[in-house]
């Protein structure tokens, strides 16, 4: 836990205390931390273990079971490509492959500059506009492979501008 800042320790402690009265508070604590920091590294799991009495091994098991939780920081832009049945039929695999090719990372990974993460999503309920891509909550409908370089360029320009 040596690497956590005092502010982080205080905030995570506060998150743990938020759910002190709950019978099984772990999921709620982890989701708040995920939302706050974007990831849940081992140092943080150790702190949560100390506060809740749940073993680090169990916490690590929960974090690696649910794809919503992440062990590593995600990029500034999280590109979620829906691979649900409808999107898949409409060519989502080619879409995700194109993102991978341009960014040089596999699904689940983050670019070295911390700008992009590619996530493979299960059905996001937008089958009418398949194949769908969701980037930081903004949904791109009927994404065509040839449009992808443009999307990436646009994000890069935005990201660079407010970096």
């Amino acid at each position: 836990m040596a690497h956590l800042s005092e502010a982080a320790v205080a905030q995570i402690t506060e998150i743990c205390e938020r759910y002190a009265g709950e019978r099984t508070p772990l999921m709620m604590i982890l989701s708040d931390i995920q939302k706050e920091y974007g990831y849940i590294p081992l140092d943080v799991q150790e702190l949560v273990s100390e506060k809740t009495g749940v073993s680090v091994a169990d916490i690590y098991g929960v974090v690696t079971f649910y794809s919503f939780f992440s062990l590593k920081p995600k990029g500034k832009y999280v590109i979620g490509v829906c691979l649900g049945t409808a999107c898949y039929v409409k060519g989502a695999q080619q879409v995700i492959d194109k993102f991978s090719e341009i960014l040089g990372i596999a699904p689940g990974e983050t670019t070295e500059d911390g700008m992009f993460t590619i996530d493979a999503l299960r059905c996001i309920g937008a089958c009418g506009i398949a194949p769908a891509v969701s980037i930081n909550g903004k949904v791109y409908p009927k994404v065509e492979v040839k449009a992808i370089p443009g999307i990436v360029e646009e994000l890069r320009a935005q990201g660079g501008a407010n970096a």
Partner: protein
Amino acid sequence: MAKINIKIEGYPYQVEAGLTILEAARACGYEIPSLCAYNHGECNRGSCRVCLVEATGARGLVASCVYPVSEGMEITISSPKATAARRASVELLLSNHSMKCQQCDKNEKCELLHVAKLTGAREDMFLGSQTETTLDEVTPAIVRDTSKCVLCGRCVARCANAHGEGVLAFQNRGFKTIIGPAENRTFDKSPCIMCGQCITVCPTGALMEKNDIAKVDAAFAAGKYVVVQTAPAVRAALGEEFGMKIGTAVTGKMVAALRRLGFKKVFDTNYAADLTIMEEATELLGRIKNGGKLPMITSCSPGWVNYAELRYGDLLGHLSSCKSPHEMMGAILKHYWAEKQGIDPKDLFVVSVMPCSSKKNEAERDQLVTRGLKDVDAVLTTRELGRLIKRSGINFVKLPDEEFDYDLVGEYTGAGVIFGVTGGVMEAALRTAAYVLTGKEHEGVKFEEVRGFDGIKEASFDLAGMTVNVAVAHGMKNAKVLLDDIRAGKSKYHFIEIMGCPGGCINGGGQPYVRECFLPNEDLDIVDTYKAKRAAALYSEDERQTVRQSHNNPQIKALYDEFLGEPNSHLAHELLHTGYAARECFPEK
């Protein structure tokens, strides 16, 4: 309990309501092939699907280990449908399993192999991809090979049940699921205490002690003077490796076997247990008299020492500085006995046979090197000794009884024998402390208050006007209660005994596996009674000893007179005491 009527294979039976089908069938004399049999739910219940049967009123086949019996239920074990389903379940397990059975040290006691034989499962029925595997052979104590893991979760449950916060857990999801420490770390980079309780429950060879037989072979090959010592708990269980009833003490045959394996001398670690008591009781009385750190806590169990270093680094001053008995034995053999025998201590190779996996780890500690020599050179578990004896073609059951070597060192008392069971170290220390404080032996010798398998035992004794408060805990879950009190400044005790394993060394991580499926001649409740049976073997050996207090061991007296001076002397400290250091639970990888 209310009785209900069921039928199994068409025959009517009356059984207790509330039982699972597996339990009810067992009570009626049927063994449904299963991977769990009776482990009190210490597994990922119902998930392996090996014990499928047909039952009226149920939809499809049911897992008998979790499905309860009900009035009028008709259970079919041997229908073609149920038989084929059980076989397919095992075949699916085998499809993601390393099939190197011949070279697996577990093959004689492998429950997966056992159910594969029972069900007629074919190992090549389902071929396809296999989960990426981890082989952790880093520590001197425990090997984890996930290619043999069937994800039953027994180790996860046992680790947590014994120690509170478990070290093992399921991680990842679906086909990538494995069991291991957080981040799939090696055990040395996790808060594992190496107790080996996980090994004792693993149905396959996924968790095993590190096999050190080759180290011993190499010492013989190099022409070393190889001697061996055995811990008290080994004699109470070694016979089980050869089909003898649980609770049979095999002291004499064990010694005979060790001689036939070529060990030059066969010593009893109990001698050093007596020595430990002299040092530890003196240390305790010194702390009480001089206002030293109290409570003092025993330090014989390396699993417990690991736990203290990992989780209670601030309390290490409470641990007795005494080395554990087999390490004391090693130091005395190399730095006293060897000289008397005219043997160069560098040529002396000390092997310890222990009921423990953590002792392997302990023997490698930097703090247990004396005058440049490791106190103990190799540690074998009770199970490894069993394998070594079988490999050498020795018919253990037919061996005559032989005596330990009592060659300057080796003689022991009843106090040393009971070290192998929870409360034993405490009782042995009390026998000697009572004598030191009151000047006479404790009436009736025994201290019954600290015996038995309660998680935490406590007692107060009035010794020569002084009240001594003691407590005994086994398993870290119980120890934690006492330790948190010390941390909070609320502990009322003078002396605490802590052992890493539930029940103490008799149930150590290196002891023979207790699996009812391989023990057809034992009682049905053997998984509940084996600890008491092994303990009884030690207590009855204590009863048979004419000398039952460590301070009355004539060789120990002579050792102090001729060599060490007195307990806790300068020389005793150099050879027999050690130190501890706090460690991080998850150090940088």
